[in-house]
């Protein structure tokens, strides 16, 4: 394994801190022929919009794009479950030749009649971009006829990376924002952005803000509702997590409605507390009681979990970890959280990090840490072994790779089953990491305990 070569063109996307001047090449399409872990534009749009539970999500294309994304994300809803259904125009050969517009129109009309959704999102897939269906005009027509917002999502797979899909999703939602009534929204109101309620995480975060005396107008998009998105421009502040997916909308809302935003992370004690304090500080001048409540909240929460975390830390101290995530912003919090458990991150990477992200990542990492952009499993396994890691944090495609290598694993992506956000989430994370790293299964593995 140690002798694997790296594609020459990929050298610029791999960096070992402390070895050479840092000039990460990122934010570009994967090379043809690479075994990348990335997905496409459609995937980006779909994961961002899918949690809006009372909207209709219609995928315009051949069946695959709908099948592979049918309820895979685990975003929970406290009410409607329409988002868990899979709707597709299921384009056939004759539609490719003659166009799919009629089929799209008929599908939209019958679905809206049947389900009375609050809005409809229509996702364009690769083929739609190619055959030139005018989905914009169909959406306008149906919106007019049915009296609900019908929003095209320009998510043709080949038109960029997953990040371009986030942007397409933000563009679609931007059409909803500002169309609802904002009477009755208190000045101490915020929007939670970039939180998708996987394993109920948005509920945890929402509760924190409410305990601080704030109102949440809309969550983008976990347990999301169309009506809330429409009136979200009534909030005083946008609090943006998972910067990759929602920054575009936050910037749009700042420009159009003058709503400032703050970038936060809810992962790990340090970043979680900073998020709440940053928000409290925003309201400090006019509502000083928010800060007091925040201090109490943080004190209580940290007090409740700290002694337990300390016990985990004693047992995890000095172990090495690798992280490979979708957006780089998540990696920052992960490094801090793993450090707080006494672990060292020796390999860090992301699918879609920007230049700026990688500069920050580099500053955070210790010398010798390998930093990768858009890595493949060979690279990930090579460095994991070379660096002697006991824990890999990644997504669906990294899990079996880590397990084959005899490395503990924690899913910090769609397949997380426990909430990892907030203080309780940090405790869950510590438990999960501890359980996997110290699992007795490793004693049976042929190479012994790593």
């Amino acid at each position, binding site marked *: 394994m140690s002798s694997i070569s790296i594609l020459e063109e990929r050298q610029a996307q791999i960096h070992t801190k402390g070895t050479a001047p840092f000039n990460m090449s990122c934010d570009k399409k994967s090379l043809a022929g690479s*075994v990348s872990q990335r997905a*496409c534009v459609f995937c980006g749009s779909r994961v961002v919009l899918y949690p809006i539970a009372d909207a209709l999500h219609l995928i315009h294309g051949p069946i*695959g794009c709908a099948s592979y994304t049918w309820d895979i994300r685990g975003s929970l809803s406290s009410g409607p479950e329409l988002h868990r*259904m899979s709707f597709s*125009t299921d384009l056939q050969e004759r539609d490719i030749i003659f166009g799919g517009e009629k089929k799209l129109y008929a*599908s939209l009309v019958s679905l809206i009649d049947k389900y009375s959704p609050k809005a409809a999102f229509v996702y364009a897939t690769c083929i739609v971009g*190619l055959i030139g269906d005018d989905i914009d005009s169909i959406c306008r027509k149906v919106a007019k006829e049915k009296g609900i917002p019908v929003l095209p999502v320009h998510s043709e797979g*080949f038109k960029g990376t997953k990040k371009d899909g986030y942007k397409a999703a933000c563009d679609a939602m931007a059409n909803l924002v500002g169309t609802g009534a904002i009477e009755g929204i208190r000045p101490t109101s915020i929007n939670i952005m970039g939180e998708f309620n996987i394993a109920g995480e948005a509920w945890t975060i929402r509760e924190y803000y409410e305990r601080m005396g704030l109102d949440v107008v809309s969550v983008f998009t976990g347990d999301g509702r169309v009506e809330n998105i429409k009136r979200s421009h009534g909030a005083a502040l946008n609090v943006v997590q998972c910067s990759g997916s929602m920054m575009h909308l936050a910037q749009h809302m700042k420009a159009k409605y003058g709503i400032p935003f703050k970038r936060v992370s809810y992962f790990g004690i340090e970043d979680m507390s900073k998020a709440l304090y940053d928000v409290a500080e925003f309201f400090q001048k006019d509502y000083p009681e928010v800060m007091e409540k925040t201090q109490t909240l943080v004190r209580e929460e940290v007090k409740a979990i700290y002694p337990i975390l300390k016990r985990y830390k004693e047992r995890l101290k000095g172990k090495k970890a690798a992280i490979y995530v979708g957006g780089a912003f998540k990696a920052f919090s992960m490094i801090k959280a793993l450090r707080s458990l006494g672990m060292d991150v020796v390999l860090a990477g992301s699918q879609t990090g920007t230049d700026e992200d990688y500069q920050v990542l580099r500053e955070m990492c210790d010398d010798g840490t390998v930093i990768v952009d858009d890595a493949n499993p060979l690279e990930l396994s090579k460095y994991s072994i070379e660096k002697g890691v006991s824990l890999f944090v990644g997504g669906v495609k990294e899990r*079996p790779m880590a397990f084959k290598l005899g490395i503990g694993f924690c899913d910090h992506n769609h397949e997380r089953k426990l909430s990892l956000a907030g203080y309780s989430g940090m405790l869950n994370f510590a438990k999960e990491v501890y359980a996997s790293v110290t699992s007795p299964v490793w004693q049976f593995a042929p190479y012994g305990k790593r």
Partner: protein
Amino acid sequence: MLLRHTPKEIPERKALTVNPAKTCQPIGAMYASLGIHGCLPHSHGSQGCYAYHRSTLTRHYKEPVLAATSSFTEGASVFGGQANLLQAINNIFTIYDPEVIAVHTTCLSETIGDDIPQIFGKAESEGKIPEGKYVLHANTPSYVGSHVHGFANMTKAMVDYFATSNGHKEKCINLIPGWVEPSDMKEIKRIAAEMGVKSILFPDTENVLNGPQTGKFNMYPKGGVTIDQLKKTGSSRGTIALGRMTSGPAAKALDAKCKVPCEILDLPIGLKATDRFVDAMRKMAGVTVPDSLNLERGQMLDIITDMQAYFYHKKVALVGDPDQLEALTEFLVDIDMMPIHIVTGTKNKAFEKRIKELTADVPHEVNVKSGGDMFLFHQWIKNEPVDLMIGNTYVKYISKDEDIPFIRHGFPILDRIGHSYFPTVGYKGGMRLLEKILDALMDRQDRDATDITMELVM
């Protein structure tokens, strides 16, 4: 109620699929490709396709699934994907060093009209395919057919590219297993070996997608049919193709190309279908059925006899792929159950006819639909409830909403293990299926029993 949005009324739908019971061709091609030793599947299209296929296969098998992509951009979509594929072939052989690259197309590259053989020719002439290495391809447009066709097309491509006749008829017979699990492929090989039949099975995902934990990450696991074996299929005495839709085209191609006669049978799921498979092998190879197999058959028959009262006229709903459903339906009828709702997402005329024949004597109205979806399947169940459902993981929603027991069979299974290791084909596999059916029914009976009616002995 997760599927509270599924109404009981069934209005006619023309332009819409809701909760699909199929997916697109390329994933089938990718699964088949993984059954070639040292093969890196390659998706000629944009980046998302193969990411989805890899994720779905990984979720189904809990194994690493590797593949490469042409990573189309807007440029490629306008000017064609030749440059991407040429670069990809070069990169893949240079860095990942597979024995063979299996290219499948996507809706994007098919619509653009990329000519894969022509691009292969160019790669060859430019020296991008190293000595002793191979490429093959299948056309798998996502807007035609389903994942089932993708598997069939890639299996046929193995014949088109590699099968050659050496002029003799060797003692060996070819076995084409159809879209079944690695465990099933192993069981089919075991049955052949038990009968003393020399065979080549292709594709063969055993030891590729059910590998052991070794502490190593192998890009190319031990299993898979070799190119050398694929070449030899052209000189075999005959071919037994299991699964009309998934294996039929490859078997016919082998007959046309190398004059290897073929028998196209059902998947050997259940007693009769396994009997037919064993008998076909016996005749083709000129062997006798060993006592060891007769014993397995007798044991399976013994279970059916012992437990007949529990099977009697229980209503079953099935959703899945045509080859599986045809074999399963016959099996259920034979054990006196009543398959009454049968849906496949894959369009196929012969399917509905075949199911109607198989269920002609079932004393109940039987609904069958090819080109249907899970939404219709659920609606049928709402209108006429059943005692048991068989299908992939997505059936669990219906199971929960309608409170009907359910056994997982087919693709994908995203939430249980077992299918990788324990077969459902052959007599042994039949016994496992019987056990699963009985467990589901009897667990339910125990759960529903009152304190008064609870039975110890069943």
